[in-house]
């Protein structure tokens, strides 16, 4: 029997259909959005959403939620978990804890694994409460693919996907050194996407992690990887071409060279030029919008970056906004991570090398409001958002957890949507840094339509996930409903803006009033009420299977792992593969 649900009278924001807040009805049948069923239809459920804001479920294109680095960071920082438990115990002592009551984190105390900080459950619940329904892990080292998929399968509610990393792996560089044909490399890329059940391809500082092993501590776009004789540019262009020729919808997802180094805006502009006019996604560009001017040799180059961005319509970017507070940086860019290990706070860090494939590092870090550098980073990210002319090509991320944990998204939305709040916030930051940016003079405020574009329609489009990110009939019924009055369970801070006409967008986006996943209600008034398993989105481009012979030989010679254990084939993640993995169409 078909289940028919009506969402009545909400203000609908859906850039795909050019709906900008006009009140209207939505209908859900069997987990899909459907057109109006006619006047004599009988609804199983009706929700009155008058005064509420309705959007598609949000899509996060770049968030490190699973994998080797994430687990290493968890192991490095057990005190986070201990402090979380201690906080909960204090709360429990302070008042009688009743089922369904809320602790100081705004977390229901009785949900499964609620005593585990930063668990997969925590990830799923906190994303769902904000109205997110699809998230993408952008850095899956192929050798960690099984770990990534097991962790993602353990994240409740959300649909997930992962991007496989190539570009520092021995086999690719060997193929390129041996002047292998592009079609041979296409086969290797396609085979990797199949074997790791990925949605796309990620390139991290191409060749850099390999050069690091030969003691390179800087690696620019035209530097040559020792022993292999190929440049970073050649690797990047070869992989970009492969992704295009294979028809993978998501463009090659690039973490550029020289991350975090003053003056690196030249690097990212050169990378745009190197993109040959073909699609390319540049990740967390805030970390590349750095000039080397001023007394401290560190300045904002946001305007310069955006000028180049406007000249290159083939390029998409996500921001990687920095927000203040404690976090932990995790990256496969071992050169960048090693260069800042001395800044670790608390003072402990991990650098690692994975067999034949790449390396990375985990460095805990606290972004401080009083810091010149951190304030400048914060301001540069906001400059990028506010000065960009094409929000449909610029995406909303904090590079979780590198710029800030994803739980800070509501705060970031408020900074973008509320110029007065932004102005007031700047008062407590490093004024010397702010004076070097355009930010204090920027009055732009994002509209709900622009937020919906960045976090919904454009994001889903960029990934090739055409069944979501919008509310047109036929889309899966991933829907987030927000109450401008704030319905949530988060503890409201004393706030001079509390009595204004403009909603507190932070409170609004922190706790959705309702969240549907595949037409099923997951969150009500900021509380998770169901936790079904999600699906992993994958891509399966065609390839010449003969490449596996070469890969088999390489594995037998150099890996400790057997090729059959490397491929994700018969993985027992408590559901059959066809229930866990969903195939996304090629271009």
């Amino acid at each position, binding site marked *: 029997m078909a289940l028919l649900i009506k969402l009545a009278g909400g203000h609908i924001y859906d850039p795909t259909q050019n709906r900008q807040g006009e009140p209207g009805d939505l209908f859900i049948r069997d987990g899909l959005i459907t057109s109006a069923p006619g006047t004599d239809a009988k609804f199983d459920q009706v929700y009155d959403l008058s005064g509420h804001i309705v959007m598609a479920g949000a899509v996060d294109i770049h968030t490190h939620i699973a994998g080797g680095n994430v687990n290493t960071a968890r192991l*490095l*920082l*057990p*005190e986070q978990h*201990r402090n979380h438990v201690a906080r909960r*115990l204090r709360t429990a002592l302070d008042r009688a804890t009743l089922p369904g009551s809320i602790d100081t984190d705004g977390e229901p105390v009785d949900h499964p694994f609620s005593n585990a900080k930063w668990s997969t459950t925590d990830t799923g619940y906190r994303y769902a409460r904000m109205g997110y329904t699809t998230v993408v892990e952008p850095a899956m080292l192929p050798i960690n693919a099984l770990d990534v998929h097991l962790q993602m399968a353990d994240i409740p509610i959300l649909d997930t996907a992962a991007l496989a990393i190539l570009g520092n792996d021995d086999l690719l560089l060997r193929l390129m050194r041996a002047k292998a044909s592009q079609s041979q490399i296409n086969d290797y890329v396609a085979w990797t996407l199949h074997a790791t059940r990925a949605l796309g391809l990620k390139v991290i500082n191409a060749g850099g992690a390999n050069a690091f092993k030969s003691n390179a501590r800087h690696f620019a776009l035209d530097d040559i990887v020792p022993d292999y004789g190929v440049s970073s540019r050649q690797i990047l262009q070869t992989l970009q071409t492969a992704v295009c020729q294979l028809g993978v919808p998501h463009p090659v997802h690039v973490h550029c060279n020289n991350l975090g180094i003053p003056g690196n805006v030249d690097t990212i502009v050169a990378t745009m030029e190197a993109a040959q006019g073909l699609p390319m996604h540049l990740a967390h560009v805030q970390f590349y919008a750095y000039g080397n001017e001023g007394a401290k040799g560190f300045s904002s180059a946001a305007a310069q970056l955006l000028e180049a961005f406007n000249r290159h319509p083939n390029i998409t970017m996500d921001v990687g906004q920095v927000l203040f507070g404690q976090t932990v940086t995790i990256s496969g860019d071992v050169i960048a991570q090693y260069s800042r290990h001395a800044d670790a706070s*608390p*003072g*402990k860090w991990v650098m690692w090398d994975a067999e034949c494939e790449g390396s990375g590092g985990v460095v805990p870090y606290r972004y401080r409001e009083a810091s010149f550098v951190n304030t400048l980073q914060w301001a540069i990210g906001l400059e990028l958002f506010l000065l960009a002319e094409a929000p449909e090509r610029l995406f909303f991320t904090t590079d979780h957890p590198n710029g800030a944990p994803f739980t800070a998204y509501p705060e970031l939305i408020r900074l973008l949507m509320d110029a007065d709040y932004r102005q007031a916030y700047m008062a407590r930051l490093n004024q010397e840094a702010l004076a070097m940016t355009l930010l204090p003079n920027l009055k732009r405020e994002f509209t709900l339509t622009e937020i919906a574009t960045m976090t919904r329609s454009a994001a889903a489009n960029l990934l090739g996930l055409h069944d979501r990110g919008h509310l047109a009939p036929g889309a899966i019924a991933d829907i987030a409903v927000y109450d401008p009055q704030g319905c949530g369970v988060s503890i409201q801070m004393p706030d001079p803006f509390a009595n204004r006409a403009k909603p507190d967008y932070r409170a609004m986006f922190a706790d959705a009033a309702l969240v549907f996943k595949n037409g099923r209600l997951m969150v009500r008034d900021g509380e998770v009420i169901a936790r079904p398993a999600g699906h992993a989105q994958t891509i399966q481009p065609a390839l010449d299977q003969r490449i596996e012979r070469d890969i088999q030989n390489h594995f037998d010679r150099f890996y400790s792992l057997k090729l059959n254990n490397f491929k994700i084939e018969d993985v027992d993640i408590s559901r059959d593969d066809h229930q866990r993995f969903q195939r996304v169409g090629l271009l």
Partner: protein
Amino acid sequence: MSALTFTLKQPTDQRIDMSPLVCQKLQGMDVDAISAIELQNGKSRRRVDELFYITGMNTQEIIIAYSNNKLDFIGKELDGGSISVQGDAGAYLGMQMKSGTINVSGDTGLYAACEMKNGLLQIDGDAGDFLGGALPGNKQGMKGGTVLVKGNVGQRAGDHMRRGQILIEGNAGDYCGSRMLAGTIAVMGTTGRYLGYAMRRGTLLLWNQPQLSATFNDCGSHTLAFLPILFASFKSLNSRFSDNNAAFNRVQRYGGDMAETGRGEVLVRI
């Protein structure tokens, strides 16, 4: 005034968190108030008088009788006063204690004197692993005070230790003094493998020749004038360390761990 005595009514299946029952937290409370304190016992919370018979008044002198190895966090953050444990103690005995004394007549579990700051902790039986260590993920273990163990200790004694002294009359397990930053560990009995693994500074004072890693260098035999002063400081202890014939000043000195900064030392009596 007689000592405030908690006598365990019967052994529990689940562990008990004893951290509320320390001298400074009980000061000024009457028996009714103390009886009503709730202790975490496994997943449930139980009143003190459900678990213990309570006698005596003096909150600055606490006795825990019929104690066993399920009583965790005894003397946590103790700040003055004394706690005497009759029987065994569980994990985290005297964790982060600031001052005062703790005495255990039996054995203790993992992480005794974990991140201890000052005071005196005496264990008449054996101690478990990570004596005077740091909590996992933390970078500094014991930061001051004295730990005296009359029996043997487990592995990783003094892991990440920063200051203070650990005196062991019996034997020490593997990795004694591992990742030590500073401080003194004295062992009258034998020591296990990987002594002083990755130690940066600090002193391991041994009565018996250890099995040393290749990253420790023999620095020759020495007569050290500070040793008699060190032994003199043990005089007030009820221990073999205070015997007149325990003291010596002639040692073989080894420097290490050279895989770290290498400024630690192992002194072996000759």
